[in-house]
């Protein structure tokens, strides 16, 4: 430490670390002050209150300071900082430097605490009489998040992890004993190519805003119980709950859009533990939101509402633990490895869990729990049932996703189900079916009491219509081949669409208040329908064997012992050799490089029955070849209104040569060394106009010409050089080549020509003046030496329903926020 190192920029790090500690201090001051302001019964004494505010302002400004320092370091490529070195490199464009910002765990926490600070400031502005207790909780949560960034050692335990850690402190290596070690570190590690996608610029901020916003309804619930204002907290909490649901849902779907566009597992949802964890809080919050509305309108289900809202925040903490503690190592593809924060994260959960349990236990007796049962034919009852099913759906996800946690807690060694995707699909679809049906028929019910006869008639009529629509949909989409439960989800989704469509029409006729929920339900129904059809009837385009392939996780025997990966989804294609796949003629037409990306041009053509081309386009899936991360492949997708054609490269010939060195050099110098890449040569004696046939086509000798110059080699006066002009047709593509024969003094040279795209090398090896013929020697590459790619192409029908459904759902939430916000009259 006492050593002087040259070239380091320590100021931004010191400043950043100062802000980290200041943000912690600010949060601590704010929490304590708000706490005393809340318990202080003297209304004239405002000192605690204003101190709480100041504490929070200090915290907010420090967080911005931390962000600025970190970005300054990333922007200037100060690789003496571990964070900059780990996640960025000099060739990254600025917008990816922004996403490098939240590449690491520390950046994630920073984003989270930033959004929480923004929300806290909104609460200071808006919450009025609720400010003190609510902000106590928000500040307390800020305190924990700030502690995650501290990066200090206390009694041998690691508290937090700082983004300003120096590289030489993060890693032990002999190189750091040299004062000028920085001059050896030319560049950072760079960003994982999969994260270099525009969705990665906006998905994390959205997701973290969603996660952060869950704290607001939670804080209201805690404040309500704490201050014994049991009923009053519900109304102001509802708009925030709606906001949390909206943003969290958007963030999760953005993540699946990223997966769909940038990853290559061939889909938008893989039931990876980290993905599942991100929807725990969403499911619970959506359930809680519905029950809060039930309570507001009927006075029923108070406890369930409080419970779900409280649990939703615990789920936020739990998902953060799952993603960051490294516990999912054996089951998840994209969880972080343990950063030493395992117990810190556990403590974060336990503290808030303890708070929740304490409040629920001590206040339970005083809660306004209605003694009366709900009417069976009332909206509140079935909304409540729906919320319970959302909770059960989350319960199942938590149970399975947490298998590594159970193993760790109980010392067991249980592995997740072997057909994990099938398991999730079927069970979650069962819940989804119930929930969609409920979002439908509960619309026919009124709060308190409903006319049963009318209810049954309209419910059944709509169900019948839904059935009439679902049957052909089922048939034409191919859903009928799947497990029954997916067809029932489709029925539920159609039913929900119809009923909520009717509510929406009524809304336009005057009951505009109801528009928000109707629109959100329509969006949800569309999302489910799109997801089921796109994932369940996904078509494999890249088939080289006839026969249909059961899709993993959706086949009828999903719980059986079938090996799901046994579908042969990859096809090898040679360059310029069209292959028929499904409706398309597919050709690997070439590749281009824009470092660090290698693009492979895959040419798609579709012909009608008469052989006329009706469509032609090119997809360019990309591959990054990287010493550290190996081959990283991203798909390219052709979007249509009703389906998507998705293509990606799954294997390539062995390491690509550095571009542009080999082929030209070999052509110019007649390099014999690469002959081993060809089949044994065949010599043909031909005259001008004659044809030589080869495996993929034919070539014609057009003429012989006396050359006056050969590239790079000046011809001397006595040299004789003859070029043979040859037209080649290979796989219906035309090429020309001109091998040259030269006599200089008593020596004979020949200059071969390569036609790489056709896998040919041609030499003019002899001139036979007597017969007026020449000898052309043809070298042809064996099939496996020719350029090829292995690709996989999938067709996702109606995936646009999923994305548009999401947009519609967001719109529905937004309408509801406006409506519910008007109902808030806080003093």
């Amino acid at each position, binding site marked *: 430490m006492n050593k002087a190192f040259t070239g380091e920029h320590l100021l931004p790090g010191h400043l950043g670390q100062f802000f980290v500690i200041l943000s912690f201090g600010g949060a601590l001051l704010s929490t304590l002050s708000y706490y005393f302001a809340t318990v202080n019964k003297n209304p004239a004494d405002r000192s605690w209150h204003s101190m709480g505010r100041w504490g929070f302002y200090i915290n907010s400004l420090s967080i911005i300071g931390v962000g600025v320092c970190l970005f300054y370091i990333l922007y200037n490529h100060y690789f003496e900082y571990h964070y900059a070195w780990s996640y960025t490199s000099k060739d990254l464009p600025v917008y990816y430097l922004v996403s490098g910002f939240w590449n690491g765990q520390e950046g994630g926490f920073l984003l989270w605490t930033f959004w929480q600070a923004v929300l806290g400031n909104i609460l200071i502005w808006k919450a009025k009489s609720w400010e003190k207790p609510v902000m106590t909780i928000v500040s307390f949560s800020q305190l924990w998040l700030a502690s995650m960034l501290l990066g200090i050692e206390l009694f041998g335990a690691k508290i937090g992890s700082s983004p300003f850690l120096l590289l030489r402190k*993060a890693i032990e290596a002999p190189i750091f004993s040299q004062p000028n070690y920085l001059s050896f570190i030319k560049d950072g*590690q760079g960003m994982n190519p999969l994260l270099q996608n525009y969705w990665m610029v906006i998905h994390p901020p959205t997701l973290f805003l969603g996660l952060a916003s869950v704290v607001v309804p939670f804080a209201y619930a805690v404040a309500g119980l704490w201050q014994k204002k049991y009923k009053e907290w519900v109304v102001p909490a509802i708009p925030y709950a709606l906001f949390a649901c909206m943003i969290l849902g958007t963030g999760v779907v953005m993540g699946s859009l990223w997966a769909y566009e940038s990853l290559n597992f061939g889909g938008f949802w893989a039931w990876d533990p980290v993905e599942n964890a991100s929807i725990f809080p969403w499911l619970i919050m959506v359930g809680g939101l519905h029950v809060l509305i039930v309570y507001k309108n009927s006075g029923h289900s108070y406890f369930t509402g409080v419970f779900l809202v409280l649990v939703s925040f615990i789920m936020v903490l739990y998902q953060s633990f799952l993603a960051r503690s490294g516990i999912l190592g054996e089951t998840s593809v994209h969880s972080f490895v343990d950063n030493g924060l395992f117990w810190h994260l556990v403590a974060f959960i336990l503290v808030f869990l303890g708070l929740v349990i304490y409040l629920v236990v001590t206040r339970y007796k005083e809660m306004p729990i209605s003694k009366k049962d709900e009417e069976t034919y009332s909206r509140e009852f079935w909304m409540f049932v729906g919320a319970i099913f959302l909770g059960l759906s989350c*319960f199942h996800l938590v149970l399975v996703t947490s298998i590594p946690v159970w193993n760790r807690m109980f010392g067991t060694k249980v*592995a997740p189900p072997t057909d994990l995707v099938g398991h999730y699909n079927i069970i979650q679809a069962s819940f989804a079916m119930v929930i969609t049906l409920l979002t439908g028929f509960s619309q026919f019910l009124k709060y308190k009491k409903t006319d049963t006869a009318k209810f049954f008639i309209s419910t059944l009529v709509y169900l019948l219509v839904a059935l009439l629509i679902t049957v052909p949909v089922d048939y034409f989409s191919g859903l009928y081949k799947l497990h029954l439960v997916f067809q029932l989800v489709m029925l539920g989704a159609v039913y929900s669409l119809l009923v909520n469509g009717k509510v929406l029409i009524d809304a336009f006729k005057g009951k505009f208040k109801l528009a928000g929920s109707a629109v959100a339900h329509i969006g949800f129904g569309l999302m489910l329908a799109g997801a089921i059809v796109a994932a369940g009837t996904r078509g494999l385009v890249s088939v080289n064997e006839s026969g249909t392939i059961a899709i993993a996780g959706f086949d009828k025997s999903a719980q059986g012992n079938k090996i799901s990966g046994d579908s042969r989804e990859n096809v090898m294609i040679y360059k310029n050799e069209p292959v028929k796949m499904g409706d398309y003629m597919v050709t690997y037409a070439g590749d281009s490089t824009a470092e660090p990306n290698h693009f492979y041009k895959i040419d798609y053509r579709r012909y009608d029955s008469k052989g006329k081309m009706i469509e032609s386009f090119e997809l360019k899936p990309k591959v990054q070849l990287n010493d*550290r*991360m190996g081959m990283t492949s991203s798909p390219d997708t052709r979007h249509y209104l009703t389906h998507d054609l998705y293509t990606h490269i799954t294997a390539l010939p062995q390491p690509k040569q550095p571009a542009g060195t080999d082929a030209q050099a070999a052509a110019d110098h007649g390099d014999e060394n690469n002959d081993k890449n060809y089949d044994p040569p065949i010599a043909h004696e031909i005259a001008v106009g004659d044809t030589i046939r080869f495996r993929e086509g034919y070539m014609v000798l057009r003429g012989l010409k006396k050359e006056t110059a050969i590239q790079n080699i000046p011809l001397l006066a006595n040299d004789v050089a003859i070029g043979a002009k040859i037209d080649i047709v290979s796989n219906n593509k035309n090429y020309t080549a001109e091998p040259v024969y030269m006599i200089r003094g008593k020596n004979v040279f020949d200059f071969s020509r390569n036609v790489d795209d056709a896998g040919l090398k041609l030499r003019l090896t002899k001139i036979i003046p007597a017969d007026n013929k020449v000898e052309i020697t043809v070298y042809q590459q064996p099939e*496996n030496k020719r350029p090829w790619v292995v690709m996989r192409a999938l067709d996702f029908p109606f995936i646009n329903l999923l994305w548009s459904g999401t947009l519609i759902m967001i719109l529905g939430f937004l309408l509801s926020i406006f409506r519910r916000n008007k109902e808030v009259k806080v003093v």
Partner: protein
Amino acid sequence: MKKSSIIGLVVIAIGIAVIISIYKGASTYGSFTDARTSQSVLRVVGQLDKQKELYYDAAKDANYFSFYVKDKKGEECKVVFRGTEPQDFQKSEQIVLTGQMVSGEFHASEILMKCPSKYTQDKIDVTEAKAKSASI
């Protein structure tokens, strides 16, 4: 009976059903020996044997990839995967295979790799840096 108790019972029933279905579906982590004796689908945790050949010939079969894995008990077995070589495969420190034994070969339907290098790539570059500093 009150409606809330009925719901409570339904919730408990569904909860139990869910737990049972997980329990029934749950597999175990095992060794190749276990796979040989049980002949059923299970998960094997092991390491890729980097000394032995990784076989993939796209021209012959673009969906056939084979390699050798040593399980935690040290037993080695040939593994066949119907697909292409997964990303980061050769960098993996640990592999979790899901599949079953078919005539002496382990046919994997899923391969999950644990590559700490993906997020903390500290090792590789430092060795590189070491080599550089040694030459000076």
